[in-house]
């Protein structure tokens, strides 16, 4: 896990880039890689690469980056981990390749030399990298299929730039901060900025599962090399019986956890009292990992109450013989850290606060790498959306298909019962959006609905942003080819949109702010492939039950039972105490979780202002 950046003055009219810009961008990512740094320039100084290193595999200086191939032709900067590196190395060595390091970075150079851009199909892991070819004078960029690792690019027509963070690109000082209406609108719709957009028109994300070439003719349009929908569509063609699910989940998860333990430093685990992290801890033991430290975030408000997760997490630790690190968090600390949280947030997000604090705790414990249960709900049908979205489609889909009916009903209710429409904005959208999977999903996940946008932003920006973003078309496109079942469709929608643009991005900025690598074994294309035939048969609770039973010693029953009743965290109340006063256009009911999220979104968007003014803490 590192920070990478680069500048390529591809156009013959452009001036060679400056050292200072490369360094400014790189050093803006210092927390991503505190263990070392490097820079490389092509002989004509038209291409420069930068790297900040967090040493995880091969801690020696010989594995430093940018790394050059032995013949000097290829140069790579890489952020992430290649979990099948040992197998790839064996294959390459069998073919006569000589390795100079024990780093997975070197494997990328050898694979690229042999397979060119097709190499990405051989990689299992989380990755964002760029390889410069000195002979063909072109740059190759790639990003992993789920989008676990970020990669942002900017092209002004003369010069191409990339970096692991938006703010790092801006720190270089050469990129316009002109706003991107699609990014602003996307944030209001989803609570995070949907890729490939950012808040800035000149900065884009390389989409997950895509590669991109850049040469003297400029950057080409990114090309996809992997599709979650395609994996699930193939799986749907060979469905398995529900009875086979537990065994497949066990085999798949154990395999993924084993792969994710590849490291030359200690690997810890984020542990809540939920099924996902507990099962992963159990599988870490089954994979032969010993001396495991598990980090749990506990809240002072809940101490000694039934809401406290720490006791149950302790029980899980005892079962799997892990050392338990409990970190207590107070409202005071939350308020103190808030400016730093908003500063570290690379792009605005309405979530990520919990990840910030648990990462902070892991860092304090001396960990560099942790396993997280992120992705379990998307993979195994854990969200209410797996029930709601198909149900809404069934109940309201036909009515929503009547042209104009939804708009008419919304307008009518808005006039005769304005209080209702303000308190329950999503209810008004049912007849407007339930006609399609994309619409029903937007309704479920939406922070604001499209018709509300002109009330919370400049109507012209709202209109232009909707035109550029085309949210429904974008959501629908992710369902091509058809994943083949209701569960698989929601799995794709949640994975490709909510998880990718919010959860994974939050895990990246919050973890990296503490120089911590967060690994996500439940977000793994090989695991998805192994479970693709099972996913259509997963019913409510069955997926999580299978996961709880995955370790050789299953999770305690209390964890499974408790997980069903849900958990409470006080950060929502703390946020409410900060953003409680908001304009009536955002919503009138501060006790509603959705309304608090809406107000928080406005606070995040104006993060700098909040970060600079003293906060008054109210009793929650």
């Amino acid at each position: 896990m590192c920070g990478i950046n680069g500048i390529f003055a591809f156009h013959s009219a452009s001036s060679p880039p400056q050292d200072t810009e490369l360094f400014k961008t790189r050093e803006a990512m210092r927390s991503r890689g505190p263990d070392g740094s490097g820079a490389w320039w092509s002989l004509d100084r038209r291409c420069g690469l930068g790297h900040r290193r967090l040493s995880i595999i091969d801690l020696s200086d010989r594995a430093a980056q940018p790394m050059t191939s032995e013949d000097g032709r290829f140069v790579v900067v890489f952020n992430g981990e290649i979990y099948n590196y040992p197998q790839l190395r064996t294959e390459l060595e069998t073919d006569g390749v000589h390795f100079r390091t024990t780093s997975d970075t070197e494997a990328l150079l050898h694979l690229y030399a042999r397979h060119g851009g097709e190499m990405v199909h051989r990689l299992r892991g989380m990755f964002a990298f760029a390889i410069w070819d000195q002979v063909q004078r072109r740059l190759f960029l790639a990003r992993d299929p789920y989008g676990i690792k970020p990669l942002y690019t900017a092209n002004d027509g003369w010069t191409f730039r990339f970096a692991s963070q938006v703010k790092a690109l801006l720190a270089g000082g050469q990129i316009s901060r002109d706003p991107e209406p699609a990014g602003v609108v996307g944030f209001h719709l989803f609570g995070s900025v949907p890729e490939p957009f950012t808040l800035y028109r000149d900065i884009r994300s390389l989409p997950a599962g895509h590669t991109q070439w850049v040469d003297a003719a400029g950057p080409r349009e990114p090309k996809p090399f992997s599709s979650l929908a395609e994996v699930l569509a193939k799986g749907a063609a060979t469905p398995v019986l529900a009875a086979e699910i537990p065994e497949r989940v066990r085999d798949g998860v154990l395999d993924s956890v084993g792969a994710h333990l590849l490291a030359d430093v200690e690997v810890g685990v984020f542990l809540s009292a939920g099924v996902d992290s507990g099962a992963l801890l159990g599988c870490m033991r089954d994979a032969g990992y010993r001396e495991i430290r598990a980090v749990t975030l506990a809240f002072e408000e809940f101490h000694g109450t039934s809401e406290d997760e720490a006791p149950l997490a302790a029980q899980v630790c005892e079962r799997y013989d892990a050392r338990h690190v409990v970190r207590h968090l107070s409202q005071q600390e939350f308020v103190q850290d808030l400016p730093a949280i908003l500063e570290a947030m690379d792009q605005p997000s309405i979530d990520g606060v919990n990840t910030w604090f648990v990462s902070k705790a892991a860092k304090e414990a001396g960990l560099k790498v942790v396993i997280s249960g992120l992705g379990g709900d998307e993979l195994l049908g854990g969200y209410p959306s797996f029930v709601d979205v198909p149900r809404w489609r069934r109940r309201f889909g036909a009515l929503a298909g009547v042209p104009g009916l939804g708009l008419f009903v919304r307008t009518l209710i808005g006039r005769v019962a304005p209080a209702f429409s303000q308190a329950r904005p999503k209810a008004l959208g049912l007849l407007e959006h339930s006609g399609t999977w994309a619409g029903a999903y937007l309704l479920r996940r939406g922070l604001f609905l499209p018709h509300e946008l002109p009330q919370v932003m400049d109507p012209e920006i709202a209109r232009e942003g909707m035109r550029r973003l085309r949210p429904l078309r974008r959501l629908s496109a992710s369902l091509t080819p058809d994943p083949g079942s209701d569960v698989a469709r929601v799995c794709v929608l949640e994975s490709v949109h909510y998880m990718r643009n919010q959860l994974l991005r939050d895990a990246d900025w919050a973890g990296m702010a503490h120089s911590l690598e967060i690994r996500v074994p439940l977000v793994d294309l090989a695991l998805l492939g192994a479970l693709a035939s099972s996913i259509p048969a997963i019913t409510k609770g069955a997926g999580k039950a299978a996961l709880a039973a995955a370790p050789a010693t299953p999770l305690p029953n209390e964890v499974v039972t408790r997980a069903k009743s849900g958990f409470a965290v006080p950060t929502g109340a703390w946020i409410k105490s900060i953003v409680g006063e908001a304009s009536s256009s955002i919503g009138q009911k501060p006790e509603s979780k959705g309304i608090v999220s809406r107000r928080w979104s406005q606070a995040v968007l104006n993060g700098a202002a909040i970060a600079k003014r003293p906060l008054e803490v109210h009793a929650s």
Partner: protein
Amino acid sequence: MRSSPAMLALVTDAYGGRGGIAQYNRDFFGALAEVGFSSITVLPRQAPDFPAMYETVEQLPARAGRIAYSVAAVRTALFRTVDIVFCGHLFMAPLAALIARLKGAKLIIQAHGIEAWPRPSRIQRTATERADLVLCVSRHTRAAVLSWAAIAPDRVLVVPNTVREVFTPSDAATQSAALAVGGKRILLTVGRMDSRERYKGHDRVIAAIPHLVAKGHDVCYMVVGEGDDRTRLEALARYAGVSDRVRFLGAQGLPTLIDSYRAADLFVMPSTGEGFGVSFLEAMASGTPALGLDIAGAKDALADGELGTGASEAELSATISRILDQPKPDSVDLSTAVHARFGRKQFAKNSLNVLNRLIETA
């Protein structure tokens, strides 16, 4: 798409036309003809001068009226092979998009400068968003197009103007003597004086002259170009008390224009609306330093300050003074650097890149 495609070019003017856009079109078609286009059919709206023949490019008779032009364009497309439709001006984009669709051809839309900066009509915007490639003469124009068009940024390329080989340095003293300025330092602007636009910055230079004289610079301001704003500018010079230092030379033929560039001590065009500003290149290729405002397309022509100088409007007078105080840069070095970056060879390479990009996406 074939590797030797046939192109239909819908343009305002090209062969027999005047000004930067016509020159750009001629340069572009010439470069494409050299990289292997089987045929380039040019349909202009106007051709005021006698069109010079070009062996691999056919220019059809000009059609000034909108309807006549559209009919001619559609008719030409129907009876000829068309692999690529080139649209030389945004206002013709809907017609070009229609023909491209009818013929199943690739669509290239060219954006030059101020015509592409404000948000265009909906129909022009939609046509632009359907283009396979949008070519912009500068980064500024590209950014402007991307501000209103929902199009993948990687389909919007910068192909800057080029400077012809005839613009070379020579003995400046001889040229200066020929202009009979009596030893004065020569400031030069080349550009049309259009009362509808008034962005070239003649006013700003005239306003700066009293300050320069006060600082001891014995300057003479030469203005090359024509236009209906000349009378106002003459009055402005009189009002500023510098009419004896301002000379309007009118339009010049190429040999005389080159001599004017060579004679100048400083080419200055503090324009706020340059899509690119090819006259900056011509001046520097003729060995004369160039100064513009540090905004819009001029930044590209001045190469972000590496070839010429960009200044803010407030610093214009002081910057002219500073440059006049400095020794004139080596004219051969300056000319060589300009040709290396914006010369015909680079333009041909950029044009080939365009063709390759279209072939890749075919």
